[in-house]
């Protein structure tokens, strides 16, 4: 897979993707919208005040939950929609002089969709982190294959979650350095 910035065309693109890459990206939408992980939702919509101030900020928090959380919920869902719509435009591509045995895929993304892609991949990673306890001691990612498997959760599922988490992070790091940071230069 190759990530390229095409400034003149106001695009960035993911090229030379195998089918698995495209599937992983589509999976980000499902991960971001995980409904069986309430801790993830709490993380996406955290309280604006510390725990010890929540009692005295009751009315403010009610308003916050009604207006701000609702607005952010819509915004995050729209970001995921943008990623999926861009992925609908994925195309098979070949190099000029050779036809690969396995097809390769290409998706072109407008520069101003970079934030939505980042948001979607970030939502997915936040949810994966909490669902699969990827950082049990706080800071460092730990591959705990046999610990804390929920009922029905398989080792394969957990390994796949680690893989997606790292794959999404790789694209995010490139996006923030090459595309999003360009606005600040």
């Amino acid at each position, binding site marked *: 897979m190759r990530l390229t910035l095409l400034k003149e065309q106001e695009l960035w693109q993911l090229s030379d993707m195998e089918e698995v890459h495209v599937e992983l990206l589509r999976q980000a939408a499902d991960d971001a919208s995980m409904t069986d992980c309430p801790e993830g939702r709490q993380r*996406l919509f955290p309280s604006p005040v510390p725990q010890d101030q929540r009692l005295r900020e009751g009315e403010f928090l009610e308003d916050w939950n009604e207006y701000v959380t609702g607005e952010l919920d819509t915004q995050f869902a729209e970001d995921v929609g943008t990623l999926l719509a861009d992925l609908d435009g994925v195309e098979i591509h070949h190099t000029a002089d050779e036809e690969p045995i396995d097809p390769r895929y290409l998706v072109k993304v407008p520069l101003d969709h970079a934030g939505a892609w980042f*948001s979607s991949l970030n939502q997915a*990673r936040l949810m994966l982190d909490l669902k699969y306890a990827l950082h049990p001691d706080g800071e460092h990612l730990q591959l705990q294959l046999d610990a804390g498997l929920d009922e029905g959760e398989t080792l394969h599922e957990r390994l796949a979650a680690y893989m997606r988490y790292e794959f999404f992070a790789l694209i995010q790091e490139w996006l923030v350095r090459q595309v999003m940071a360009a606005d600040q230069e």
Partner: protein
Amino acid sequence: MPSTTATPELETDTEVTFDEPWNVLIHNDPVNLMSYVAHVIRKIFGYNAKQAEKLMLEVHQEGKSMVWSGSRERAELYVKELHGHQLLATMEKAGG
């Protein structure tokens, strides 16, 4: 009758105190990329790269960093923006 000029009494209120400012804090989390945290700090608060890097490292190494201080209304807006970028942020009255 001599003319008199009324001298208005100047009212003073010794009880008036200025509102304490509110602080906006960003808290560390293990998922958000360091480069992204610095990017968001620059984008929202307009700090330069060096200042944003310093604040990001404070978040990373000390668990949190106070990134802005001022009126409550602005603090609410900043926290909302930070949450919109999926960073963990809170606001609290300066001095507790």
